[in-house]
């Protein structure tokens, strides 16, 4: 019977790496949990303008900081602003920063690393020295410079963070590619007549996806926190707008008097972080045909 099924499977439509990966991912409960939590957070963030109980700029100075209550589930901050509302609006900013800045880092880093690692020799040396130089540049000064030249905007913030975060990605990818390039299947691809671009795309990048995914899941939270640092410098978003990073920062300052201002944003960020890691681990395993058998 199983013979017959296999025989039939042979004629089914070809499976791609990603189709296979999602089939395996669905079996990974932890990863699916992560995906579910992230989806909920994303949906809430998208729907914020319609579901937020208050306006994000609405202050009530007489109220001041109050602990969680029926009117204000997560309490209010020192200006009497509803914490839940601020967290919801903060999600929009933080998730966007996380997503856009990480994508920028991913795109530049993976391409840069792959090209440097694949061509090797002088190309590699020059490209990686450039990375070293950018590494050595103090981050804050670099961002301030950008802001001075281009003015303050959200887009610039994304680009600036992405432009810094890609350096590590490039190094990781380059290291992996260098060791892969010497493998015979890459030589076989050359011998077959594939162009360099085709080789990078079809044979190299799929084989470095594991480390890329893991590093990406680590980059997203660090980017979210980086944004709060920039906001602190006055470069990111300013109150009454909020982000997870700025809420946590504010929460830390008043932690002893008003702990709820730290606890709830903290839980939200940790939850996102855990979910990302579960999903990342799951994806890495799912994308490696050797890791699971079925």
């Amino acid at each position, binding site marked *: 019977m199983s013979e017959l099924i296999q025989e039939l499977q*042979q004629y089914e439509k*070809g499976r791609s790496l990603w189709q296979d990966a999602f089939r395996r991912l669905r079996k990974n409960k932890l990863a699916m949990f992560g995906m579910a939590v992230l989806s909920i957070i994303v949906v809430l963030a998208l729907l914020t303008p319609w579901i937020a109980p208050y306006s994000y700029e609405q202050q009530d100075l007489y109220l001041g900081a109050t602990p969680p209550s029926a009117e204000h589930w997560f309490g209010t901050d020192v200006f009497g602003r509803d914490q839940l509302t601020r967290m919801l609006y903060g999600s929009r900013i933080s998730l966007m920063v996380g997503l856009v800045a990480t994508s920028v880092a991913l795109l530049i880093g993976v391409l840069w690393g792959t090209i440097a690692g694949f061509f090797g*020799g*002088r190309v590699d040396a020059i490209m990686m020295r450039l990375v070293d130089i950018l590494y050595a540049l103090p981050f804050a000064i670099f961002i301030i410079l950008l802001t001075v030249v281009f003015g303050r905007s959200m887009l610039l913030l994304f680009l600036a963070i992405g432009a810094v975060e890609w350096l590590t990605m490039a190094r990781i990818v380059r290291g992996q590619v260098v060791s892969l390039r010497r493998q015979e299947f890459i030589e*076989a691809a050359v011998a077959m*007549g594939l*162009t360099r671009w085709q080789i990078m795309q079809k044979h190299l990048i799929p084989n470095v996806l594991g480390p890329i995914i893991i590093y990406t899941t680590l980059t997203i939270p660090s980017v979210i926190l980086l944004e709060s640092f920039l906001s602190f410098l006055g470069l990111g978003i300013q109150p009454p707008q909020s982000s997870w990073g700025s809420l946590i920062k504010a929460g830390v300052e008043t932690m002893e008097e008003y702990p709820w201002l730290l606890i709830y944003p903290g839980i939200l960020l940790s939850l996102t972080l855990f979910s990302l890691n579960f999903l990342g681990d799951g994806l890495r395993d799912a994308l490696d045909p*050797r890791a699971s058998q079925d």
Partner: protein
Amino acid sequence: MSLLNVKNLRTSFYTREGQTLAVDDVSFSLNKGEVLGIVGESGSGKSVACYSLLGLVPSPPGKIEGGSAIFDGKDLLKLNEKALRAYRGNRIAMIFQDPMTSLNPFMRVGDQLIEALRCHNKTLSKKAAKEKALSALEEVGINNARERIDSYPHEFSGGMRQRVMIAMALVTEPELIIADEPTTALDVTVQKQILQLLKDLQASHDLAVIFITHDLGVVADMAKHILVMKNGRVVEEGSPADIFENCSHPYTRKLIAAIPQSAKPDEFKYDSSHEDFVEAKNVVTHFNNTRGLFRQRIVSTVKAVDDISLNIREGEIFGLVGESGSGKSTFGRSLIRLVESQAGDIRIGKHRIRELGNTSLREARRDFQMIFQDPYASLNPRMTVFDTLAEPLLLHKLAKKNEVLERVNHLMDEVGLERKHIRKYPHEFSGGQRQRIAIARALAVEPRFIVADEPVSALDVTIQAQILDLLLKLAKKHQLTMLFISHDLSVVRYLCDRVAVMQHGKIVEIEETEKLFLSPQQPYTQKLLSAIPRIHTN
């Protein structure tokens, strides 16, 4: 009273498929000063059996299920970790296959020898230990040992490194040495020296040796007693003469028959009246070692291929033999421009290889392909067999989208793989099957010329014979011209019409295969041929 007496040893492994017996009821005994050979292919349990004795089987997943191993009156299997350590490296020493990975690359060899000595004899002074280490190095034939004792492992050549490993095993004056494929990673001439050294040391120290190998030829004139193992069981045992002359088990017979002893059948021989299909004239390939911030400074140049000219006739299988570092692989890769050569002229069929531009070279590549050595590295682990085989077909537009499946199935038939495995990934196949996939990939574009770089050297001997026959059959069917690169002379003798011997980037001798094997003209060829381990049968 024997030194070691193993009875009914059983070792199992837990795998995802369940529990498997890696060693199934193995018994043997060994006297002082005797050599026991254990022969088998990968997965036969020959190494696990010996590792079990010293508690070196990782547990879990491994587990010793039963049996006894009486060494000098004590049952090794019943000893705890601490008690076993007094035996390991002290009274029972090991020599591993790959000296590069079994020596610590960050420790001077002298320090490693001294460590081995002092961990078993705490009272030994550093100075005395060093003297002992020195004499051990001298004994295994390391010249000016006093200087070399402070070298790091990478500063030794492969053969010298294996000598250091042997010195390490000897330095504690053990009674029993377990040598696990000690010469497999070595060139044939070096292998011969190391085997001789082992033989001499065994006699002079009156050592008992268990010699684990996949190569019957290697143990043939060393061991007094041979065990042949398959799937964890001993299928046959006896003296070398018994094994080679009147073996009874079909597996032993298959093992002996798998060693190519002669030329290929006449029907596969080439027609020497054919035109040259491949012409290489004065090919030179250099590698530059570069340094500096931007790798702009050339510090040294390696002449991997140094002015080589040869012609291969249409339909011929041309053998290229040489030891590691002789430049044979680089030459093969230079021919089809996987490596850029610096000078010379190369023609394959109608293509003048060195003159092709990028685009025309890529198009020309469908006429010449390559089969690689390591079937574990030559297939993209994230592509199914179907994707691997469909890629060249689609790339060179040899099949329309709706014909691809049929073409791939046809390729599977040609290389003797079942069609139903088409959606599997490479790791789900055995080494031999993977090499078949690699062959199918090379054949997919219907090439005229194939460079085969050591295509069977990573395979077990019985699998090797199957792949060789497959290559012969396919070469004849598709009228392929082939450059067959190998270090294994008996394989070359079986497969090739003519042979070139390479050394230090130059060709030493080119001759018709049988002529070369029967009357080699050059001293280097003679040395190479005499180093092949032979099975002497009367």
